[in-house]
């Protein structure tokens, strides 16, 4: 899609709250947060070829840090937000350093294990995290005096950030750095012998992904005003991984589409269909059988074939 298309889409999305009820606006905010989160993971899974099964750590950790700063230290949002992002990204740096000792399945397992450790901490370190009861009693920030407790205002805020994040990701993957990232995915050996710092490139991607995950985490905690260790669980990590794959890893639109789909099925369709888990599973299987590379690439090639036929 071209630039005009993107702007048009943005405008349409921005106008949504004027036409729909509060429920849909809130659902929209959640989708956008999921889109950011999935896009951040896509950097790793799609472009770096590193399948992480522990990405929920960054969302969860950032949510927890923000919540703790607010509840335990009474810190204001203006200060807490940057500290949260920084701290989470630092953790991402350390975890990346550990996990990137391996690649492939061991990388997957290391990310999983690291996330499980943080999850265990969330459950067990009750004096800080309040354990299973989670942390509640949080507030949303109000930048420039705009009241974000209002669903519409919050939606616009999230939309703005989503647009910025997607723009950053789009730039990144088209840049030389993006090309070398894909290179490390496809032929690590050759990349090193050409003189690229494979480890460094991966680590940078990892840190960027954890930073963007932390952004999603902040938005998440502002939205829910509550955190529970379940945001750190494998299930949460698996869910975002599934949205990336279902939408199409390694494409820009894919993770967004996947994330929207998963949120829709989980939160919307489940209101109408009691067996929504079956539906969700069925949809995944269907996607795989029809479009093994995910929705976005699948639709794209379908489109191309139709266009060819017309000619």
């Amino acid at each position: 899609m071209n630039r005009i298309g993107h702007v048009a889409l943005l405008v349409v999305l921005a106008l949504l709250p004027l036409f729909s009820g509060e429920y849909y606006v809130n659902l929209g905010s959640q989708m956008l947060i999921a889109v950011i989160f999935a896009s951040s993971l896509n950097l790793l899974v799609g472009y770096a070829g590193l399948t992480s099964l522990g990405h929920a750590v960054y969302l969860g950790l950032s949510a927890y840090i923000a919540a703790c700063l607010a509840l335990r230290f009474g810190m204001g949002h203006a200060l807490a937000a940057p500290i949260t992002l920084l701290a989470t990204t630092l953790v991402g740096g350390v975890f990346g350093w550990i996990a990137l000792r391996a690649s492939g399945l061991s990388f997957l397992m290391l990310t999983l294990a690291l996330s499980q450790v943080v999850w265990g901490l969330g459950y067990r370190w009750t004096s800080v995290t309040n354990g299973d009861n989670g942390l509640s009693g949080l507030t949303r920030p109000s930048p420039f005096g705009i009241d974000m407790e209002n669903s519409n205002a919050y939606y616009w805020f999230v939309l703005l950030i989503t647009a910025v994040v997607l723009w950053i990701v789009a730039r990144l993957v088209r840049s030389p750095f993006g090309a070398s990232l894909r290179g490390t995915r496809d032929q690590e050996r050759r990349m090193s012998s050409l003189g690229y710092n494979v480890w460094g490139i991966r680590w940078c991607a990892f840190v960027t992904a954890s930073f963007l995950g932390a952004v999603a985490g902040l938005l998440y905690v502002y939205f829910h005003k509550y955190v529970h260790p379940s945001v750190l669980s494998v299930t949460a990590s698996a869910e975002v991984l599934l949205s990336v794959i279902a939408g199409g890893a390694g494409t820009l639109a894919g993770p967004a589409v996947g994330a929207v789909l998963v949120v829709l099925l989980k939160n919307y369709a489940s209101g109408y269909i009691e067996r929504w888990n079956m539906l969700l599973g069925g949809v995944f299987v269907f996607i795989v059988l029809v479009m093994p590379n995910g929705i976005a690439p699948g639709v794209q090639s379908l489109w191309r074939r139709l266009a060819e036929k017309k000619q």
Partner: protein
Amino acid sequence: MQFWITQTLNSLALGGLLLLLSSGFALIFGLMRIANLTHGALFMTGAYVAASMVRAGWGFALAVTLAAITTAVVGGLIERLVLRRLSGNAQAQVLATLGLSFIAADACLVIWGGDPIPVTPPAFLLAPARLLDFSFPSYRLAVILAAVVVGALLYWLIERTRVGARIRAGVDDMQMARAVGIRASVLFTSVFCLGAMLAGVGGAIGGPMLSAYPGLDGDMLSLALIVVILGGVGSLLGTLVASFIIGFIYTFGTALVPDLAYVILFLPMIIVLAFRPSGLFGGARA
């Protein structure tokens, strides 16, 4: 003293259970390199089927058999209808098999409800065994035995009959494997069925220890992943050994440092993988 003996037996029993759980996974995921995340669901199905059979009075042996058959058939169908088309595309496999396990888990919920269902062990194993001055469940001793038998049989099958080499050839280069005359299609389906069947057997045999309950699939899947990867993907011996190692780590870890109960499996894992990314016994072939 009794603490140490009981905990050692506990470790062995848990290790045996893990072996039964992960041997099938070692075949499908380790050897065939198919990311079959329905493994937990198959295990759970095995447990539920066995529970129903035992409850209906069919006897434990028959229940295990039926669980084995059911999961083997289901596994075969999954391989033929879905995974066959996705060979080599690990991400698609993950998506498809997780999708299938969502379906399976929900189906189990519909059929068997949300309550845990016990599996009664065979009558002769009901009474605890007396060892010296304390007692230990005789069923668990039987599980250790069953695990050793299954492990040995499997090891023999894979390492001695060249089945393993043929599968690995297919994984390395499917086209070439077929071009040297390996009937890869039949072979892969059979081994997949065997793996699925082992999951079902594991579920049926593990049933009396774990009971069948919703969520069993997820719990077991992550354990199987841990075992296989810690042992070294592709190394059957690694899986067999890792099962027991984890049995010990878990049992003694939770008893001696309860504060670490949540991370007791993952800390050693991080250490091992950080220094040996291909697992304890991997590497030679990974």
